[in-house]
């Protein structure tokens, strides 16, 4: 059973928010604790899946934004 504090650290670890020394400790723990290592692997897979679920806006909308910015530059 993984402790809640460690589970929170795992979340911070996969989102690159864990302090360097805590990262080193956690990475050492992965070598000893298979459940912890698998938990991390699972989170990374979910994270990648969530990345893939992002959507792309239309080129027209992006161009509108860029044109708007340029039009302001021309006015000033």
């Amino acid at each position, binding site marked *: 059973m993984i402790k809640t504090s460690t589970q929170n650290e795992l979340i911070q670890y996969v989102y690159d928010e864990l302090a360097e020394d805590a990262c080193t400790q956690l990475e050492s723990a992965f070598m000893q604790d298979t459940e912890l290592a698998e938990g991390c692997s699972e989170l990374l897979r979910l994270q990648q899946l969530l990345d*893939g679920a992002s959507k792309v806006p239309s080129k027209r*909308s992006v161009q509108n934004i860029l044109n708007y910015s340029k039009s302001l530059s021309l006015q000033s």
Partner: protein
Amino acid sequence: MNTTTQMSDSALVSLYIQGNESAFEQLVNRHKNKVYTTILLIVKDSYTAEDLMQDAFIKAIHTMKGGRYNEEGKFSSWICRIAHNLAIDHFRKEKRSPVITLEDGSNVFNTMSFSEDSAESLQIKEDTHARLRELIQTLPQSQREVLMMRHYADMSFQEIADATGVSINTALGRMRYALINLRKKMLKSNIAYDKNLYSE
């Protein structure tokens, strides 16, 4: 070669404030997908999401060109927070869930594109990602909010804790439960845990 491609967001913002439009184009291209997805997951309508994404960047343009941009914090968190707030404002005004359709009448969640894949694997990816977005919508509100703020709006857990008035441990706990619940829902919905689905 475009010299802005390797620059940090902070350097690009500085260049843009000095009048470099290419720097702004780089910023927009870097963050448009996260900004758009952040909005789309809230408003659930592609037309509205496109409009609000433009509004978010226009707001950012005025802030930067008006000399009011705060150098503290990440640009990505800042622009996604603007987008998130605009989407929430819109959602509160509308107080309804509009039908999600595109110009051709197809469902908004069926238009993802991937390269170098067979038609069959493309379809599997499309279906999986579409289903995943639907499952995100079924999470409890507090969990969905943290997941969207952290994963798509790129806010740190501390920023989320501050924005939602909870402790960082509560924000982390909500994220943990969001991911646990999402995994359970995926398994229940027979969404395959195939590693090939993870690469774009």
